[in-house]
């Protein structure tokens, strides 16, 4: 069994089914972001494992990002993941959300500082497992680990490696996050992660059919991942 963390009152890891998340970009602008979140809610309202949305900062303007986060959080009461390369964007946006969101997207030092200031759990990302576990070791807050998989193969290898390490190294005993894109190949990568120890799956976009299939897998494999 992996360790757990909680963000936005959602528990990730342990015996819980994998938490699934679709994404919203601030490049849509606040008006279209409102349309997009309603669309996501309609698409996944009956799919219990789609518990979070990821709000992505593609413009790198803290004000625009904050406005997008504000619009989404007035409609969406599930989990929120804030993703930005800009620490200022994350700091401003995290203050707008009552329940501590998960923050990710910038370097380890910035994430650790933001975690200390805001109390938000963070997601560390690196394809180098050793570096990733160094980040965990120095983290002042709860974290998930993202081994930066870019295809099914690397997802299988790195998730398995981390799972085996978790039996021997406490730093590796953290929920594994997988970040993937859109469409059928993204479904395949997400499926491998759900079946091989992934606890939090963030997908840019997936149609209704893909959401139904992935949600079913998350239920089916909750007892097989540990």
């Amino acid at each position, binding site marked *: 069994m992996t360790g757990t963390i909680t963000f936005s009152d959602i528990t990730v890891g342990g015996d819980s089914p994998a938490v699934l998340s679709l994404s919203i970009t601030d490049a849509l602008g606040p008006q279209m972001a409102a349309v997009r979140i309603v669309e996501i809610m309609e698409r996944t309202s009956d799919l219990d494992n789609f518990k979070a949305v990821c709000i992505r900062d593609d413009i790198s303007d803290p004000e625009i990002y904050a406005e997008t986060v504000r619009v989404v959080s007035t409609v969406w009461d599930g989990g929120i993941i804030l993703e930005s390369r800009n620490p200022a964007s994350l700091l401003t946006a995290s203050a707008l959300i009552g329940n501590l969101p998960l923050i990710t997207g910038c370097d380890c030092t910035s994430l650790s500082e933001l975690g200390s200031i805001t109390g938000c759990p963070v997601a560390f990302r690196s394809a180098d*497992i050793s570096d990733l576990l*160094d980040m965990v070791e120095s983290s002042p807050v709860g974290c998930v680990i993202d081994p930066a998989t870019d295809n099914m*193969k690397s997802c299988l*290898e790195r998730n398995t490696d981390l799972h085996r*390490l978790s039996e*021997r190294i406490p730093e590796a005993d953290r929920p594994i996050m997988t970040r993937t894109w859109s469409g059928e190949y993204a479904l395949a990568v997400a499926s491998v992660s759900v079946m091989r120890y992934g606890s939090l799956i963030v997908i840019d976009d997936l149609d209704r059919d893909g959401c139904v299939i992935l949600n079913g*897998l998350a239920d089916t494999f909750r007892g097989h991942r540990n």
Partner: protein
Amino acid sequence: MRLPKTSRTASELKELRLGKGDYAAGGAHSLPFLDLDGARRRRPLVFGEVTNDLPSYPALAAEMFSGRQIDPAEWAVMWKEIGSDGVCLRITGDDIPSSVSLVKAVCDRTRLPVVVDASPAIIEAVASEVKDSILMLISDHVRDDGHIAVIGCRDAEEASSVCGEHDAIVSFGHVTEEAELGDLVGRIEGYRARGLSGDGTCSNPVIVDVTYAWDTLDEDWDARRASMLEATEALAVMLAGADMLIMRGPGAADMARVYGEELADL
């Protein structure tokens, strides 16, 4: 941080020659696809399903074969043309001469490995008439006639008891509902774990029929969704350790082959 090694070693599982002898299944010596454990670069074989009983075959799937499904031998050739590694021939009825002719035609025209699913009388007739191809015959007992039995088992314990160390291909059933996929995966993983730990009675190749994704469709489903589900179930069982997959949708079969190639790093 210095990390301990996480690689694992295991016993080698049995490898079986199929068809004209130019295809092989099994032979793994690690958990599936894991470079971490020095996995063999081999993907599962994909078998396209062909039936002589079109009325009971889903129309949604039949539409994808451009009319060639009305002739089972021609249908099998189409599977070869679109990249299938083998054919699973399901024969209904009890016409032994025409069934034997059909199996011979499929073997000769495709030169691929063939699984035959038919009545016991037809299976025995086919086994005695076809001598130039190693067939996989769905049976309830191991064979010593040069062909290989495909034996359905509940779990690793039953497979160990029924097959012993004889050559056979083991089937742990199929998925009829999404919830059962986890049980099926558990049975395959349990069998593979015993084989990899050195139990010679659990080292035969495993075949899984994932066509049932198409039988569970309701009116809201279309061919794309069925293909995605079939391909995802194929991915699940190949990660669990399936060596061969029986598939219905050509798109899903193609996806499964691509997934296997990527995971095996081919």
